[in-house]
């Protein structure tokens, strides 16, 4: 299966800017479906970006983050061609991981 994570990391030599887009329903558990039944909560809880064996950014998310979440941040360092590892785990224990090359 294709990865749920799309990530672009771009280095300008000094800092690396990272943008990530993840496919996930991010159901908050407060919304009802067409029949009036509550859609159970299903959202990513932790999203981690690792560079060179160290976490450079960790997101703790609740159900209030939009569907197919997007996040952007930047960190100092990061060389073109190096790997950036991205992984998430949701409230049902599902998980996905991908590795992107810094451009």
């Amino acid at each position, binding site marked *: 299966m294709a990865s749920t994570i799309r990530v672009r990391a771009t280095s300008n030599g000094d*800092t690396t800017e990272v943008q990530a887009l993840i496919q996930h329903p*991010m159901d*908050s558990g*407060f*919304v*009802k*479906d067409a029949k009036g039944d509550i*859609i*159970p*909560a299903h959202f990513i*809880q*932790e999203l*981690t970006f*690792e560079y060179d*064996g*160290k*976490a*450079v*950014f*960790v*997101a*703790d*998310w*609740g*159900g*209030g*983050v*939009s*569907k197919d*979440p*997007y*996040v*952007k*941040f*930047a*960190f*100092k*360092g990061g060389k073109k061609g190096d790997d950036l*590892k991205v*992984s998430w*785990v949701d*409230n*049902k*224990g*599902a*998980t996905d*991981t991908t590795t992107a090359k810094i451009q």
Partner: protein
Amino acid sequence: MSITHNGFSAQRRLVLKGAGTVALIGLGAGLGVIAFDPRQAFAAANDKYPEEAFKQKNEADAIKALYGKTAEPSDKVKMDAPEIAENGAVVPISVTTTLEDVTSISFLVSENPNALVASYKIPAGTVPSVANRIKMAKTSNVIVVVEAGGKLYSATKEVKVTVGGCGG
């Protein structure tokens, strides 16, 4: 890693028991064990998923559950949010700060069922600036809390929502 995540899954099990997905969760927890361990890479004090903070109804309780202290408003915290959000399901909010020693940035929406939306850990070397997209149930204050040098600083802005993001 398994210690932390087993702890989580026990809580998840409690939360989701009513949904009758216990078997699925067991499977999911098994899969979760393959995931990374944030504790090894990031050894700050609040390195665990703040389950309690995300359950709080209002922003003051959520900030307290997350940080154990209160935030003071600061003009060094700059929030970029729309005046009017036509679609409450997707409200782009970004924050940046000139404060030093930033260790985390959190986003809260007062009128959401659970105020805390997202909390980001900012390790040393990471730029204290985050952009994301959040859901808003209705017109509400959006609060950004920046933890810097052990203290909390906040910025608040009202965002008008024409179509709520939590009504489906």
